[in-house]
């Protein structure tokens, strides 16, 4: 209905292979970015930026990572939390061991460390498939958390086992961690990184490596026969996926909470992120964001809903009801659209493009 495409023809392959091929989509995307970078910081409160936008962005990044592995490369993983933890602790160790290191360097390096760990735990994927692999990844989840709990070295022997980020600034005294950091600074810093990595990911999945991943996902034997090597392809997926998860973990620990203990990344975190990509849509960059938004906002909504209706229910009951509704919604969504919000979005778009025709 909104689309007017007649006369939008492609004269070059660059144009034809662009991420957004329709003019109106490009406008929309720019509008979104303007809103994200300018409007939101201006209008929204400390609370919104700090406790809603930040976790949303960071978890979206983690979801993006998992989606590369599970959605694109078809390797089901339940170890996301473990990888996030790795990122967080790597960042902590780096930041404390080399105080001079710039925050961006710290974050990228912690991502790299996590990538290494990811490769390590990805090796079994060559022989193990499907749910066997999923369970195997749980091993990494539990092992890593145990490790960070067990060995004081990771926490610099802090008695509580909690790590806290030292104050760090992007430039001058624009602190993004520690007490001097403003919510705006944190938000913009995170947003920039997330947008950047979203773009990189989109590029990967529309390039050769992305096609190799999907080939492995859709029919691994055929993929092998046309010359795609299983191990490197899968390991690349694990590496990049855990790279993103690691960075998400680092951001979580440093930017969002400021101080964190391993339990913040337990198996529930893994499931939370998995929910995001399932609800959001497997194999879709946009899906990671939609899913993250949904999963982050839903509990907030659920826990506030009763007050709006003037009911007051004991806290523990609320949390139980929350769990119920949450589970119910998950099922509902899977039934309505197993391929997630991204697919719904896509269908809507198709409808608009073909309007008034049904096909």
């Amino acid at each position: 209905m909104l689309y007017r495409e007649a006369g939008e023809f492609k004269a070059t392959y660059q144009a034809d292979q662009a991420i957004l091929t329709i003019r109106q989509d490009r406008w929309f995307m720019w509008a979104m970015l303007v809103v994200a970078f300018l409007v939101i910081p201006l209008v929204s409160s400390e609370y919104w930026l700090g406790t809603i936008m930040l976790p949303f962005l960071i978890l979206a990044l983690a979801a993006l990572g998992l989606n590369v592995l599970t959605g694109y490369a078809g390797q089901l993983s339940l170890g996301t939390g473990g990888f996030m933890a790795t990122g967080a602790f790597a960042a902590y160790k780096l930041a404390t061991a080399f105080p001079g290191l710039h925050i961006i360097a710290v974050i990228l390096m912690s991502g790299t460390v996590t990538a290494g760990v990811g490769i390590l735990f990805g090796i079994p994927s060559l022989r193990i498939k499907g749910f066997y692999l999923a369970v195997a990844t749980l091993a990494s989840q539990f092992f890593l958390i145990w490790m960070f709990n067990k060995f004081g070295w990771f926490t610099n022997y802090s008695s509580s086992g909690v790590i806290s980020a030292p104050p760090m600034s992007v430039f001058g005294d624009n602190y993004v961690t520690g007490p001097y950091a403003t919510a705006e600074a944190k938000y913009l810093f995170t947003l920039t990184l997330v947008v950047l990595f979203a773009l990189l990911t989109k590029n990967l999945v529309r390039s050769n490596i992305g096609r190799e991943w999907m080939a492995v996902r859709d029919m691994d034997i055929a993929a092998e026969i046309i010359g795609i090597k299983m191990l490197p392809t899968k390991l690349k997926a694990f590496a990049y996926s855990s790279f993103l998860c690691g960075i998400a973990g680092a951001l979580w620990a440093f930017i969002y909470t400021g101080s964190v203990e391993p339990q913040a990344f337990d198996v529930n975190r893994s499931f939370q992120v998995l929910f995001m990509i399932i609800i959001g849509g497997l194999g879709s960059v946009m899906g990671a964001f939609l899913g993250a938004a949904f999963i982050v906002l839903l509990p907030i909504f659920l826990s506030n809903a009763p007050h709006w209706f003037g009911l007051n229910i004991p806290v523990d009951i609320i949390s139980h009801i929350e769990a119920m509704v949450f589970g119910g919604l998950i099922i509902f969504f899977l039934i309505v659209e197993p391929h997630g919000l991204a697919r719904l979005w896509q269908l809507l778009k198709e409808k608009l493009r073909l309007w008034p025709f049904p096909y």
Partner: protein
Amino acid sequence: MYERKLGDVVLRVEGISLSFGAMRVLNNITFDVRQGEIRSIIGPNGAGKSSMLNVINGVYHPQQGTITYRGETRDQMKVHHAAEQGIARTFQNIALFKGMSTLDNIMTGRNLKIKSNMLQQAIYWGKAQREEIEHRQKVEQIIDFLEIQAIRKTPVGKLPYGMQKRVELGRALAAEPDLLLLDEPMAGMNVEEKEDMCRFVLDINDEFGTTIVLIEHDMGVVMDISDRVVVLDYGVQLADGPPDEVRKNQAVIDAYLGVSN
């Protein structure tokens, strides 16, 4: 108007025997494939034709026999090795990447030719993009060649069977193979589609000089287009020679009367 001349042997399988557990699938099969020819392996269903292809490109590993490809003799092919050595194939029951468009499926066929690394691809600038474009051009030529322009951007899952077969052929061609293995390319097609497919097979062999090994279970189509034919039946080699010779061969006739094709 023009004489087909067969080149020297590019592939030779010798005394190949393959079994799964107790079941004997191939029994001492021996034949060769010459440069630039269309070589057919025919036989009733369950004759072990597909297994033969799987042996040639290394999906199955025979217990006995040797495979000589481009002068190198091995006891068994390795899958990735076969691909790197320029052996491409299509599958009896279509093995496309359902989640991708026609274009991407065929692009995937060129994975071995892409040199840019992950980082370059992530940045999608310079080399990576140049490669994407130049390979896209190659792929477009294949799309043009197979006359599937209209379904370029369609997800292959949505395509009718005949079209999927074409796309799969395109994916194989994208690798610019020296040796092309076609597993029942015409199975389950109507007359028109079969004729198209025949034309494509001939054109491929003709335009790109690709050597083709082709499997079919009904003799009709194959006989007209192949230079030489091997006949298998229950893993045993019944005959090997030019079509009209094979057609006369008694054993073959019996086998086919047996399955009444």
